[in-house]
């Protein structure tokens, strides 16, 4: 017993000896001389760390002298002090007027959100991926991505839409920097309003998203990060031209005024050529003008950062029969007119608290005005949406950083005034809501995110949205994720399915459309492995969506009608995807994906596959760059399986179509040549020249009973060839 005690004392003797080498000091704020608590101090020699107490004081026992003391605290520049003798009293003044501060504070928040995201299966599409296809706008940015399918909406508007998990894009929540982007009246054509060159990155989450962003997101969440004033792009110019007579110019750049930084974007696009590859006397693509701008600002102070700006879109496009002139129409030609005016203002503020380095408060305010006037022959759809969106998020830890939470309040006001032919609809939606999300980390292995939100909809009453996400790193190289949750959305059939107006079908819409209500659950497994020292990835996922209620568009009841009604409990989607991405060499990347969609609902009383959703899809991508990175080659093939087509057997024989589409490959390729400041690209789309014959039913009688331009399952324009350049001048990095 005594031996043990002696041993015990002996053990501590060296420590006591060391204690005499003690160095103590205090870290203060330069301006007010107040101590800063929680500052981490590192000794370089013995690599030990210590934090200051509540008064900003610290004590350290270094082993050797001299040693260097490194102080790196969020919001202050890095400070180093050489200590050459023990018992030194050190007073360190930290100056927070350093310009790096804004970036450092942002880093704090960014790190947190990524940490949270990791419980969800999120793919990031970055600059390199976006440049693989000189995408003109957001709808074209997903063509090399397996999780999102892109298809053309109809044979006259030239617009593209997306699908996730085999479900229409309206079930994906699409936002930019956590603010609503494609929603309400913009849900049909909104994807084309964001130029591809404005996008810094896109985060794609399959399945339900966080409760923080609202009760929508049934099949997925797409969040865009646009280029920000903190980037170094002083001046950027992009041009694009294709053989269909579409020309584009994009210009943007950052200006800095001390603490204030601004970035201005301008996008101009014009199409002027009448393209009619399938010789049906209809323009395959509309002609006309699109312009958009964004002016955004960033500033930051001691404990806050602020981002705000305005954005505007102006679209004026004309399609339909060649010769149709919107301003001078004698009703002899079938015409399509697409007009949009969009203006929005936004402000995002983040606050950090002086006495806590874990708590933060964020507020988002967005106000929108959206006007559209769409004409398809004699059908006219006109709408105005005024929107206010407010979201506040408070986040902190419970005890330590293993337990985080985010909570807040949100408010949405949507005021719609719509008219469809002779009927007018006025609707105001007011939705206040509250949410709470708890995140638990177990080491770095397991993360569980449990969220709950409650909203009160003025038309539909209380809406409860529970969500759960979890990830488990079975080994450092793989991860298993599960997600489950409820998603809700209020349908707006005229805005959601505007492209279906390009037909003589009569719209039969049920009076009381209930909110669409779905339960989505999914499982994802990702395995990373090395091939020749390069990281390759294999991912499989399966998602199941069950609609408790879905607003179904039924084109099977009659070829002359579209029925839109509530389908309770009959609609579901099973989606399976396997994707393999291999890098056999440093500069060669191969990607292949296989997708299976079992998406069924009752159409015309029978449970059957949703029309235009193929059961099988495939994607292959080859990317190669030369070792000096001057040349990049990219080839993407999308294989589209058989799609079920709506019944047309009640039509006269010449206006009937097959029940099923043919399979086809859609192949795109691009070559890029890079110089230090400028790069040139040349690319082709639909290189196999796939064209759907007789895409428009009864194209010769557009005002007759059988006319239908919505039965589109393949491209109608054939090969497209485009070329352009990117020119960038960057600020010198500090």
């Amino acid at each position: 017993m005594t031996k043990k005690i002696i041993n015990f004392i002996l053990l501590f003797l060296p420590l006591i000896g060391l204690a005499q080498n003690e160095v103590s000091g205090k870290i203060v704020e330069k301006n007010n001389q107040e101590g800063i608590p929680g500052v981490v101090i590192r000794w370089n020699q013995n690599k030990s760390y210590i934090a200051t107490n509540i008064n900003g004081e610290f004590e350290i026992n270094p082993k050797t002298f001299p040693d260097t003391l490194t102080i790196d605290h969020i919001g202050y520049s890095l400070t180093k002090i050489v200590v050459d003798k023990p018992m030194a009293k050190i007073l360190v003044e930290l100056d927070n007027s350093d310009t790096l501060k804004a970036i450092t504070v942002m880093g704090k928040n960014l790190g947190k959100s990524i940490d949270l995201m990791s419980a969800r299966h999120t793919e990031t599409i970055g600059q390199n991926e976006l440049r693989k296809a000189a995408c003109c706008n957001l709808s074209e940015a997903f063509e090399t991505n397996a999780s999102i399918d892109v298809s053309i909406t109809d044979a006259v508007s030239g617009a593209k839409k997306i699908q996730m998990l085999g479900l229409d894009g309206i079930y994906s929540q699409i936002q930019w920097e956590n603010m609503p982007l494609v929603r309400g009246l913009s849900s049909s054509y909104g994807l084309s309003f964001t130029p591809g060159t404005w996008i810094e990155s896109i985060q794609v989450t399959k399945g339900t998203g966080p409760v923080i962003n609202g009760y929508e997101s049934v099949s997925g969440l797409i969040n865009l990060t646009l280029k920000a004033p903190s980037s170094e792009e002083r001046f950027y110019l992009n041009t694009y031209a294709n053989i269909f007579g579409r020309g584009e110019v994009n210009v943007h750049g950052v200006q800095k005024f001390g603490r204030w930084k601004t970035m201005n974007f301008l996008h101009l696009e014009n199409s002027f050529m009448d393209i009619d590859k399938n010789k049906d006397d209809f323009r395959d693509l509309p002609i006309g003008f699109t312009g958009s701008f964004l002016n955004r600002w960033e500033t930051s102070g001691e404990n806050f950062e602020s981002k705000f700006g305005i954005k505007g879109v102006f679209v004026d496009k004309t399609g339909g029969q060649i010769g149709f002139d919107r301003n001078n129409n004698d009703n002899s030609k079938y015409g399509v007119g697409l007009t949009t005016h969009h203006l929005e203002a936004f402000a995002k503020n983040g606050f950090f608290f002086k006495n806590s380095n874990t708590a933060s408060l964020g507020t988002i305010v967005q106000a929108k005005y959206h006007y559209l006037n769409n004409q398809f022959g004699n059908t006219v759809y006109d709408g105005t949406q005024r929107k206010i969106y407010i979201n506040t998020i408070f986040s902190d830890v419970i005890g330590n950083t293993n337990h985080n939470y985010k909570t807040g309040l949100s408010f949405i006001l949507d005021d719609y005034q719509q008219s469809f032919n002779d009927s007018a609809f006025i609707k105001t939606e007011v939705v206040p809501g509250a949410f709470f999300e708890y995140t638990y980390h177990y080491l770095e292995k397991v993360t569980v995110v449990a969220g709950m939100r409650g909203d009160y909809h003025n038309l539909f009453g209380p809406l409860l949205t529970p969500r759960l996400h979890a990830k488990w790193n079975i080994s450092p190289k793989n991860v298993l994720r599960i997600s489950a949750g409820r998603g809700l959305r209020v349908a707006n059939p005229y805005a959601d399915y505007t492209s279906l107006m390009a037909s003589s079908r009569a719209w039969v819409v049920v009076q009381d459309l209930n909110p669409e209500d779905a339960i989505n659950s999914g499982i994802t497994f990702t395995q990373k492995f090395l091939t020749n020292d390069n990281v390759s990835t294999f991912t499989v996922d399966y998602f199941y969506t069950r609609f408790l209620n879905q607003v179904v568009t039924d084109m099977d009841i009659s070829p002359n009608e579209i029925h839109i009604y509530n389908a309770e409990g009959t609609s579901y989607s099973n989606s399976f995807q396997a994707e393999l991405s291999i890098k056999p060499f440093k500069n060669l990347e191969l990607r292949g994906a296989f997708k299976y969609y079992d998406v069924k609902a009752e159409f015309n009383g029978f449970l059957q596959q949703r029309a235009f959703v193929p059961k099988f899809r495939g994607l292959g991508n080859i990317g190669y760059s030369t070792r000096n990175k001057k040349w990049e080659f990219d080839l993407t093939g999308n294989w589209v399986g058989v799609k079920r087509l709506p019944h047309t057997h009640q039509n006269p024989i010449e206006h009937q179509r097959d029940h099923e589409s043919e399979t086809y490959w859609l192949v795109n390729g691009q070559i890029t040549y890079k110089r230090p400041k400028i790069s040139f690209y040349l690319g082709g789309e639909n290189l196999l020249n796939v064209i759907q014959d007789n895409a428009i039913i009864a194209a010769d009688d557009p005002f007759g009973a059988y006319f239908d331009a919505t039965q589109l399952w393949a491209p109608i324009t054939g090969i497209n060839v485009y070329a352009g350049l990117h020119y960038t001048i960057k600020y010198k990095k500090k």
Partner: protein
Amino acid sequence: MKNVVLILFVGLLTTGFTQETKAPKVQTIEVKTSAICGECKERIENTLNFTKGVKFAELDLETNIITIKYKTADVTDVQIKKIIADIGYHADEVERSGEAFKNLPGCCQDPNAKCAVKKKE
């Protein structure tokens, strides 16, 4: 006559000899440097890849070795090392230019500074 043959013979020999010792047209060298982050990598690779005669330049951040393939007719290994030193980095025995190093962004000067991609220690 004998002499002439001898001269011719010797001449032939020497031309053969000089042809043998002539450096190959394309050469690959490895240069140890002092890069610390992704930004450094980009700076070095971008400058070298757009230098006349360089076919490609790749920096491995883990080993800090730049692999450079170049045409010997256009550029020499000494010139390449001088270029690297002028960006602000050591290149084998060639010391970096102090002035260029001072003009590098903070994250390329200080191993402790925050960067997007930092070399692993």
